[in-house]
């Protein structure tokens, strides 16, 4: 995992389908910090995360990832390589078993982590062999958490990571985020719920 010292968002403006969603967003998150992104439905939390990840081009403004090694990354495609992502959907292939999905993620990220161990950690060991089509909403979300771990990226961008998770799952998610930041990672979490973590809060107001 490359080491990141700061995520800096400067004068970020977002337009979708020709509509301005938000403008002149400014914040910075340092290594080891969690930041929650809050705001009303439609305020642009998911859009902001997509922009930071490099999935969506911004209308104007900058996103810079300052690396511990000294240089800064601001190109979208390069940001993408530093991002661990958990969106509204989990990128799980219904026809593959839970384990096949996890093995694919591991191979894709070139992860050197033990896949069975990760599945155990997110509580999917018992059902590793069943087709993912049969997963309940929360089980699928847990597979998303497994992918996040396997991706081994310094910047985590999580879009409502707690949704569908049961109480134990929520604790697990919070724990994972906490550990990630303790290891020097950064997490930006869009959520309407409390994470149960010591986090900076950023409000996206209506425009």
């Amino acid at each position, binding site marked *: 995992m490359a080491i990141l010292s700061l995520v800096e968002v400067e004068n970020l403006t977002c*337009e*979708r*389908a*020709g*509509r*301005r*969603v938000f403008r002149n967003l400014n914040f910075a998150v340092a290594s080891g910090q969690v930041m929650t992104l809050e705001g009303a439905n439609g305020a642009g939390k998911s859009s902001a995360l997509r922009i930071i990840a490099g999935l969506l081009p911004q209308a104007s403004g900058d996103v810079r990832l300052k690396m511990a090694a000294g240089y800064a990354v601001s190109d979208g495609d390069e940001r993408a390589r530093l991002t661990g992502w958990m969106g509204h959907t989990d990128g799980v292939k219904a026809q593959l078993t839970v384990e096949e999905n996890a093995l694919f993620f591991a191979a894709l990220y070139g992860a050197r982590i033990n896949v069975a161990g990760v599945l155990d950690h997110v509580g999917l060991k018992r059902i590793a062999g069943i087709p993912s089509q049969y997963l309940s909403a929360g089980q699928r979300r847990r597979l998303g958490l497994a992918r996040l771990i396997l991706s081994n990226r310094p910047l985590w961008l999580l879009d409502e990571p707690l949704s569908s998770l049961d109480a134990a799952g929520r604790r697990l998610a919070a724990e994972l985020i906490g550990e990630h930041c303790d290891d020097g990672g950064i997490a930006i979490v869009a959520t309407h719920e409390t994470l149960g973590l010591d986090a900076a809060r950023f409000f996206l107001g209506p*425009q």
Partner: protein
Amino acid sequence: MMITALANPKRFLDLSRTVSPWTCALAVILLGIGFYWSLFATPPDYQQGQSVKIMFVHVPAAWMGIFIYSMMAGASLVGLVFRHPLADVAAKSAAPLGAAFTALALLTGSLWGRPMWGTYWQWGDARLVSELILLFIYLGYIALWNAIDDPVRAAKAAAVLALVGAADVPVIHFSVDWWNTLHQPASILRLGGPTIDKAFLVPLLIMIVGYTFLFLWLLLLRMQTEILERRARSLMMARGA
């Protein structure tokens, strides 16, 4: 100066409102002269008789079909690379015009083919077939614009399609040289100068210029409408923001 002036849709609207009446007038005058000259003041061809007059409709239409597509592909490239907002508008507005000219070329060509080749249509003739494909590429391009309702995304997708489809254009033009076709080889745009008789060449050139102005006029009109529609749309969307 020109580019920056045009980059602003509002300036473009002002400019095109002053220019478009002139293009319209030029189109009417040139097409009037061209039609009169080609229909009544040219001799019948010694081989083709009166049916040669179809040429004055067919050849400019065929050229416009190809020319407009090239323009569209160029505009698409500009739109993709330089994100010039008017480039997308121009490409989108040009497509139905290009499709219409291409359809006209196909129609007049096959009407001409009946007396000349004894058939309306010849499958397997490279020029005819590639021209038909060009029409379908136009239709696909238009359909793609219509199918995506986010104009930003639609513009990019359509631009990629226009560039990919551009491969057909040289095939159409060179098909007569590459394959043995019914269709005659280039007689005007060729190395070594035109081989066509002056009596036909001059009115034909007038028609071609006339068609071009007709196209420009319609293009400006369509671009104006498109810009206004986009404005209306963004007003509507802004209300929801």
